């Protein structure tokens, strides 16, 4: 059975997130909010490594580590202001026990860096292995 916790385009967890970021060449990073949660109240998400103790983390996964876009192109934060101080490519802890029924806003800043014009599909946002109860 798959997780009911997922990434959503809206706070109401109606539309699964299917888009990333569009950066206009040379015009600076793009900030976007993606939501993480489960629409099912009563569910709880915990880290599989030590449920209830270890944090659930959202990290940037680079499918092609040596090419394309690097994970450091993305910063994650729980607030808009936190993006400024966030470490590029660093995972974001969102709590040790995530309740279902409400979503957590994840602020994502995507920076062009040295990327040229084009589409890059090797990045994803992913959680650490979790268990849902």
């Amino acid at each position, binding site marked *: 059975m798959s997780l009911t916790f997922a990434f959503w385009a809206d*706070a*109401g967890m109606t*539309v699964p997130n299917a888009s990333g970021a569009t950066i206009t060449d040379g015009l600076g990073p793009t900030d*976007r909010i993606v939501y993480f949660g489960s629409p099912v109240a009563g569910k709880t998400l915990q880290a599989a490594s030590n449920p209830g103790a270890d944090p659930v983390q959202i990290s940037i996964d680079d499918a092609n580590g040596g090419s394309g876009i690097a994970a450091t192109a993305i910063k994650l934060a729980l607030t808009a202001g936190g993006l400024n101080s966030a470490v590029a490519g660093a995972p974001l802890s969102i709590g040790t026990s995530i309740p279902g029924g409400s979503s957590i806003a994840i602020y994502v800043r995507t920076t062009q860096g040295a*990327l040229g014009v*084009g589409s890059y599909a090797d990045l994803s946002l992913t959680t650490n292995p979790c268990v849902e109860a």
Partner: protein
Amino acid sequence: MPVSFVTRSLPAGWAFAGRGLEWGGKIYVGATSDTAAPMLMVSSDGGQTFAPQAWTATSGPPLRFCARVGCIVAGTAGGLCYSTDGGITWALGGANLSSDLGIVTDGTHFLALATGTLFHRSADGVTWTSALAASLPLTVIRDIAGASGALLIAGGNTSAPRSRIYRSVNGGGAWSLVQSVSSASGTSMDRIAADSALCAASWTLGDGMYVSTNGGASWAWRASTSSGAPNRIAVQDAVILGPINATYMQRSTDGGATVLPADIVAPGLPAASHQPAPWPAGGGLWIITARPFANLPEGPSVAPHYSEDNGDTWSPITVPGPVHGIVVAADGPLIITTGAEWLVPGVEAQQASTPWPVAIVPALVATTDWPVTVTAAPELRASTPWRVVVAAAQQATTTWPVQVLDAAMLGGLDGAGSWAAAPDGRWEAVVWLGTDNISARILGTVSVQIEADAARTAEFSFLPAAPIQPLGLIGQRVRLAFAQAGGLNAQTIFRGVVETPTIDLQTGVITCACHDQAQEVWANTPRETIDALVGGRWHVAVSGEPEDNFEYLRERIQSVGASWALDASQAPRVLPWASPARTITVRQTDIIDGSLAVDLPSREQLRTRIDVRMQYRYPVHRARGISAQWSQPMGFFLPSNRETSDKPAYVWPTVGMIESAASSPPGWDPVTPLRIENPPAGTYQLGTELNPAFYIISSTVAPSLAMGFSGRYSARWQQTVTEDYAITLVWDALEAQIGQPVGEEIGASLESTFDSPGWGSDPSVAPAINVSGVGDVSVPYYAPGAAPADRDNVLRTLLDRAWVRLWSASRTGRVRFALPCRPDLWLDTGCALEGGSVRASGVIVSIEHVLDVDAGQATTDVSVAVGMPGATPAALPAWSLPASPYTPALPSLEQLSATIGTYVGGLTTSPPFDPDTMIGLVTNAENGSIPGREYYPVGLSIRWPELTAEDRDPRELEAAAVVSVAVPTDLLEIT
């Protein structure tokens, strides 16, 4: 000490045999059985019970015993047995050695007399030495005894001295003649007995007895005054009994010093063929039995008697059978019989009885039905859920495609006249249906409609490559993008789901109508998120309870100048009408020829004023305190008889009158007890010294009279107050432009309800309202959610909405134009149009992208909302609300007190009685009944104040204001 015995019985089939022995706390008696070998019966409880013990000796039970420290010797028919372990085990020491005539001990050695001429002796009971009487010498041995340290043999000899007593101090190894009597033939020492050092012996012809006090070493004759020699002799302590016959007995009770006259009667002893035999029974107790002549000395005897006075008197003992022996037990003598019974000291259990007639009667049974119902016990368990979840670790992942878009894609306006999105004019529509890219299957046009305050819609048609199930398309995710040929720089223009697929049965082309799920997304968005996105105000009194959050959004956003929509990622967004996120400048050369159009707002669409009405209704809890008081001085009632004036007395009002009139006035509750002032009792001097007169009020009458009273009263009631606000927002500039007001009205009502039956009539019903003294108290009641702060909130919400309404009404103008497809344009973009004869600026409110794959044409139709000209921004005003029109009601003075006058009849000036006007004390002069005068009915009436209509009826309080506002205007110039 009286002696009583209890009879005990051996087990069936057993009978006692021989004498018994008490030694070492046990009693040993031989017993025979019909079916078993002879046994030694042993009692360890003083003779209460006997238990058989294995008798390891020869045939025959033990018939006689003799014991000294370390050894018990038992004589049987088969020989002499011994025990050296206290009687537990036995062995045959002297086989076939008879001891029929007795066994004695001197404390060390044993002497057993077999016959009159043969005896056996032993030092240890194991080894026996036999000897003849002739060895002493004696012709016949009559009797033997054991004294302390000496063995004694009494007998006769054929040669003188014929009667002899021999003594041995070495266990019979050597004998000494210690006493003899020369007498006629046929005489001898007949009997001898010893108890420690005291010894006694009888001589055939002696009327008395020989006595030794030194263990038989020397003897002395004690003569008796009675004739007759004892046939038996026994010694116990200092007492010697030697019965002569059944009637007489030689006795010494002083240790042998003297012998009493033998004139003792022992009744009951058989005399014929019997000899009495005395038995020491311990503790000064003697038992005497009668032994038949034919018995051996140890044979059974009969007719036992006992004496507790050394033979002075005897009493019979009832025995179940002949007596074999008397054993001195700890509790007294144990009488051993030849039967299965024996006697032990004790008291026979007695039974008290009473007749117990038993009648057998038929049983009478009272019955009653007793239905029994067995019900299952309710199972009660305490339990707690213990949910166990076994879950595989999983990861939630979302792809994060990043597109770096050439900045040139977003340029190409402001008169550039180029198509930045497809510079070489080569483009393609990118269509993803679910996970499939069906771009190559697209037919006709792909259109996307984007509109403020509406869902984004799209439509496309395709020819499936393979048969598909059209119904399976419903809900499929759709992404539409505009890209340069080859898919470069693709820009998403739609994300959503297929709402309605249709199929052309002729061509097989499927057309999908899609939307971006805006309603669902907003409905699922939490109110807190909507509040944060929109800002503004909302109140349930204005909008009602929304069905869902989508309706809540649409209500709340009416208080701000903004629109809602989902962006290209389907994220909910609020788009302000002023200060768009970005602006573009579109010039004539950018737009498609002939596409420019302007729709000006109509007068009907415009609004110059909005009337905001709000009614705020709440109850006011009111209370009023009033007083009722009346008094007259003593002089009013007392008569006076002066030289210049003469006043009669007036009739006093009574306490009863006052209580009746003032205790419970209708509509008023007493607050304080009624205070009545009584006239002082006493004698009042009237008149003058020369013409005195007295007026007496007795002490018994005074308390019933009154000269004044006062009381406080209150009443509670509710009054509804409605504050009716009418605030008109006026856009003066537009109204002046138009020339007359064009308005509409919006409104809301807020009500505070109080529903406690009985409030007002029941003082205990909360809330309490206390009125002290005289006057009014008014306390408005504000229910939760209907306080004055809520009223203000409602007013401000209405005013915000009114102002936004003015603004939105003014934004009905539209400037429309078409461009080569600009997929980057959206509702967050402000647009300044320099379109030749038209100059306008505003926010894009609608966009339609049409990608005609067949014709190769891709365009974007843009509609920009423009307000009234002026290009002047204006902010939402900070409202200054009118003051509440409510003020507490103030009653008039006459509403706070009762009317109580004073009217006296019987005076010359007394008018006719008018009950309608004469409210108060009505009394008369006590002057009899003078004709022509008006006399009144004495009494007290009170006119109480009443609540007026103004007090009770709902109050409608108005507050009005006119507020001039400014509304943002846009640039719109047409030349």
